[in-house]
């Protein structure tokens, strides 16, 4: 299967390298708008086709799938072009810079037997997978309380670039980064019914740098969420959930899962080193390898597979956070499937 990459930045390079080492997959073409990148590809990767327009690559490169790793505003237009041509696609999160954009893509995919994947890689981090498994096995009894956080020390002055221009990116930390945690909460605890949130800009001029939110779930649970990219001490991104149940509590983060019993003694602990099982190829974290393997396997086995509904759901949660914050009150979140309009 031949793959084309649109946007050869760090994520495009990473996903392409991972795909290239899977039997039956091959990066055959790359699109980038930078002349330097195109010249570097021509010089260092002479066997890979290079394009400055994704339309041309999709039409002429003879590819079966596209990896979309461009600034957010262009995700949906590129994916629509891929769908029209009958190509499978992987795109980085978030799906689009607006919810209506996300709905357009959801609608366009309906009834198309294509593999589509949005890059919610945290679902492939072994500790979060283990956490989900322990919850499903009722390791702490009935869940009563959830608190969660996701941080990175990134923004300590006004920034330039597309990420900080909401007309291109769709927003700040919530759509760019907190969205991973929102997806994990949806995955762990199901449908959300109420969202109350407050976003705050600390250093950025046009986008938010922090958010505090409270989710109510259909099953009666509630979860608190705190997220910031303007907090010191988190050179590497960090996400953690603390879940309290009738029989104990569980903390899950990127590094470990720990279950404590009612007396506070550790009942089980699984570190990332314990859960690391050896992967076909690891460049920047096994979660990315597992993600690309899942994408490739679905294409090769011709299994229709898509996480588009989850991706749109996460985007709806982002939208609800922005809308609750601007209204200054909780908003009801329509449960059930996404409503493409």
């Amino acid at each position: 299967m031949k793959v084309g990459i649109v946007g050869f930045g760090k994520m495009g390079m990473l996903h392409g390298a991972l795909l290239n080492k899977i039997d039956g997959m091959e990066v055959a073409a790359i699109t980038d708008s930078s002349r330097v990148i195109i010249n570097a590809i021509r010089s260092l990767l002479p066997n890979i086709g290079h394009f400055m327009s994704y339309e041309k690559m999709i039409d002429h490169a003879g590819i079966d799938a596209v990896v979309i790793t461009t600034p957010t505003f262009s995700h949906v237009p590129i994916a629509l072009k891929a769908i029209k041509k009958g190509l499978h696609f992987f795109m980085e999160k978030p799906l689009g810079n607006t919810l209506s954009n996300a709905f357009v893509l959801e609608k366009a995919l309906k009834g198309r037997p294509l593999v589509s994947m949005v890059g919610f890689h945290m679902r492939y981090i072994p500790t979060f997978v283990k956490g989900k498994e322990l919850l499903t096995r009722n390791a702490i009894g009935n869940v009563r309380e959830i608190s969660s956080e996701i941080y990175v020390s990134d923004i300590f002055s006004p920034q330039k670039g597309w990420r900080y221009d909401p007309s291109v990116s769709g927003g700040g930390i919530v759509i760019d980064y907190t969205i991973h945690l929102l997806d994990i909460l949806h995955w762990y605890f199901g449908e959300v019914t109420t969202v109350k949130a407050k976003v705050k800009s600390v250093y950025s001029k046009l986008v938010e740098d922090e958010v505090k939110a409270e989710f109510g779930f259909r099953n009666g649970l509630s979860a608190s969420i705190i997220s910031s990219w303007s907090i010191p001490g988190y050179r590497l991104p960090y996400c953690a959930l603390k879940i309290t149940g009738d029989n104990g509590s569980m903390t899950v983060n990127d590094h470990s899962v720990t279950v404590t019993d009612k007396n506070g003694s550790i009942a089980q602990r699984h570190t990332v080193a314990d859960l690391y099982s050896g992967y076909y190829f690891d460049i920047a974290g096994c979660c990315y390898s597992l993600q690309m393997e899942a994408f490739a396997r679905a294409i090769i086995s011709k299994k229709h597979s898509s996480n588009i509904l989850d991706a749109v759901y996460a985007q709806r949660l982002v939208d609800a956070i922005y809308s609750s914050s601007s209204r200054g009150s909780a908003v009801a979140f329509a449960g059930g499937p996404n409503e493409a309009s």
Partner: protein
Amino acid sequence: MKPLDLSVVEPVMLGDNQFFGVNHLSPDKGRAMEERFRDISEIKKIMYYAIDNGVNAVFFSTHPLVYQITDMMRADAALKKMSVYVNIPYISKYVRMLSEKGMERTITTMLLGEKGLMRKMAFIMRGGISLARGNYLELANCLVDVEMGPFYDLNVKAIFLHDALTGLAIGYDMVNVIKNFYQYIRRRYQVIPAFGTLNYPLMADILKRAEIVRTLVMCGVNKKGYFMNPGRKACEEEFSRHSHAILAMSPLAAGSLKPEEAFEYIASLGTVKHIVVGLSSKEHADETFRIARKYFTKA
């Protein structure tokens, strides 16, 4: 070129992750460490604990703090004598810059980031000419020199290409990038060109195709198989098939193994003669290095 002398590589090295707040098991601990080691004299203490325990080698990435650390080492007779193993580039810095600035501005920022006006001018000329001529391997060499800037007048023994970059080279099968790095480091620095990897069998394969049959390779080696891809057994088998010297990283599997058990396993393989280990207290240093030196001694 003369064959590489790998006998100069020390059996035990002090790692640097703890200085920069990397703790794979406990981010809270990592943050506390980062705070503590902002005070350079704390780093100096740890380096002296290593020397007191007979460990005279230190492994560094090119974290922004490294300028202060290398200044401190040059000013101290004992630290100046230590062997230095450098891992380039400091990948978080590039990842952050690439997200914010894109490729072109990252390259220019790196070249401009060089200290001293004359060096800065020279780098801009050399980098600019390489870029204009489309000579990307020469541009990469230019960035190697930028990264090596802080290590002048120190006893550098080897320069490692970071595992994320060898990963990309493997993924896109860029044999010439690997070969260029090897040749440039030997020619320009006359030290051991070394390679970090999380994927030893794939690394050994690309090295072979780059006609590099014997050098220093750093990869995950530990009883848990952490960072050993595609698996512990496959890596163990591959170690004995090649003549590379193996430097075990994550020997304690990110702190989840006790030193005795961990080092006994690595030594029992018979193929891995070097380890790098990070630590942050005198007690920890005394214990870990004592056990390490029991299993890893200079041949």
